[in-house]
């Protein structure tokens, strides 16, 4: 039943009975968000230290002890409480996550409960082992939806909330000639996922170098050609024509 998705997504069914997919956040963006949060926390501790030092200069002997105690307690709060507090207040985000447009949600796409926030963040103590979140990243890398141990225990996902632009309709240039189309079947048999992959590929053509474009197309075109018993002269062109035939899209006139 479950088809492997083209992108790293998690499908969610809402109370409105609409299924939509969340784009999952991969290790790279999560590490970037974590680094930002680390900086914020370091900054907080530095501010506390400065405040403590000023307090110590200003006055009584006992105060420096109070300052040190406060500093350690704050250090504790920043180390263990930072993410718990922010993810509670900011509906699954922290400063770094908001900057990277990430959000933590439950596996069914709902907002987190406090218990889940506590669990996923306490488990950092294991994910961080042996150094630099090595275990967490390792676990994340082999999980289909990029969960670290804390996410697995709490039942949470980190999703990406970037908005997508509505693009111009795809136009195949130069326009397909009748001669080219003549050799193709009226309705090539392409599964929706295959069409989706081809459309994504065609939309990204201007991002690839010529060689890369060929390389990618050569991975797919022969398979499709063999299946349909067709020949082609240029793999990229072949994919574009197939797409046009299957969807009737890709030319200005009938887009």
């Amino acid at each position, binding site marked *: 039943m479950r088809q492997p998705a083209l992108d790293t997504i998690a499908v*969610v069914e*809402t109370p*409105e009975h*609409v299924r*939509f*997919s*969340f784009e999952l956040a991969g290790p790279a963006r999560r590490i970037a968000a974590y680094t930002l949060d680390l900086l914020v926390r370091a900054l907080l501790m530095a501010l506390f230290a400065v405040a403590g030092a000023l307090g110590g200069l200003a006055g009584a*002997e*006992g*105060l420096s*002890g*109070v300052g*040190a*105690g406060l*500093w*350690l*307690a*704050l*250090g*504790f709060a920043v*180390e*263990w409480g930072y993410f718990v507090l922010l993810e*509670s207040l900011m*509906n*699954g985000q922290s400063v770094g996550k*908001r900057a990277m447009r990430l959000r933590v949600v439950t596996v069914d*796409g709902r*907002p987190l*409960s*406090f*218990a*889940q926030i*506590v*669990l996923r963040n*306490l*488990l*950092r*103590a*294991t994910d961080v*082992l042996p150094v630099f979140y090595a275990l967490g990243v390792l676990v994340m890398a082999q999980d289909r939806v990029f969960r670290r*141990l804390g996410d*697995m*225990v709490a*039942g949470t996902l980190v*999703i990406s*909330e*970037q*908005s*997508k*632009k*509505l693009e111009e*309709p795809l136009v195949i240039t130069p326009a397909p000639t009748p001669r080219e189309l003549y050799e193709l079947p009226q309705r090539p048999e392409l599964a*929706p996922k295959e069409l*989706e992959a081809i*459309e*994504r590929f065609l*939309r990204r053509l201007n991002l690839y170098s010529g060689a890369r474009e060929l390389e990618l197309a050569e991975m797919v075109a022969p398979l499709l050609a063999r299946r349909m018993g067709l020949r082609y002269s240029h793999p990229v062109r072949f994919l574009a024509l197939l797409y046009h035939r299957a*969807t009737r*899209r890709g030319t200005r006139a009938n*887009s």
Partner: protein
Amino acid sequence: MQTRDEFVAQRQARWDELERLLLPDTPLYRREPRVISRVGALYRALCSDLMRARSLDFGQDISDHLNALASRAHNALYGPRPFSLRAVSHFLSAGFPQTLRRNWRTLAIAHLVFYLPLVIACAATMVDRRFALNILSPSVLESMASAYSEGFDAGRDGGVDSAMTGFYVYNNVGIAFRCFATGVLFGVGSLFFMLYNGLTIGATLGYVSVSGHGMNIFTFICGHGPFELTAIVISGAAGLKMGYALVATHGATRLGSLKANAPELAELILGAATMLLIAALIEGFWSPSSVPPPIKWAFSAAASLGLLAYVIFAGRGSQRAA
């Protein structure tokens, strides 16, 4: 049939309006009622647009755009439950002790795993003080012994008290949290940290005792010990429970079993954290004070009995929290 362009032209204004309304970072519930209900209406319309765009196959970019917008609107609309003081007080007065009683077996095992090595290390060190050197370095042991050579008749000044409270919070709560968190490695981490902490504490107690300051250190820890050691054991028990959930899955997948156990795990660790906070306050301000030892011991006895009564009786007859 509607073409893609007609579809987009007809709906785009609504999509853009929703996009604009979602732009501010303030949570939705803090905004004007008009905005909230408008976002709700636009979201529902968007959901049907999304279905339509998919079924009529207007192209991947439309589905992607609507999907991204829908997921953001969804997250804005389905906000988290607000914080409630009543839930906290119910948890502390009933939920936590109920959960402790339901998990008495795990707790009993955790007590053994922690106290057995503690007692053994303490006894072995009392018999032969060189035993402690297997566990801790001589310099640490010596500094512990000299720290407790004075006693607390003179008390400590308030500044040092606060400093030490901060240190205890930082250190001990960290120990307890690690006892819990490493349990996800099939319980091995929790076992290791409980054994290790049991041995360390036992060896220290034994070493300070043979150095002749036993009364001082026991009087020092008698006030906060009941809270602190129990909380560490509860954290470890939660870790063991987490590890056991991965092994004994009762027919579920390992992750499913973990998920089923997660609410109780969170209750155990949150309760333990509360106890550790209480312990740190006692440890920072009461334990090192110049209050005469008999009163400290009386306080300790009362606290222990109170804790025991809490664990056994609190929240009986009260409904389980939903």
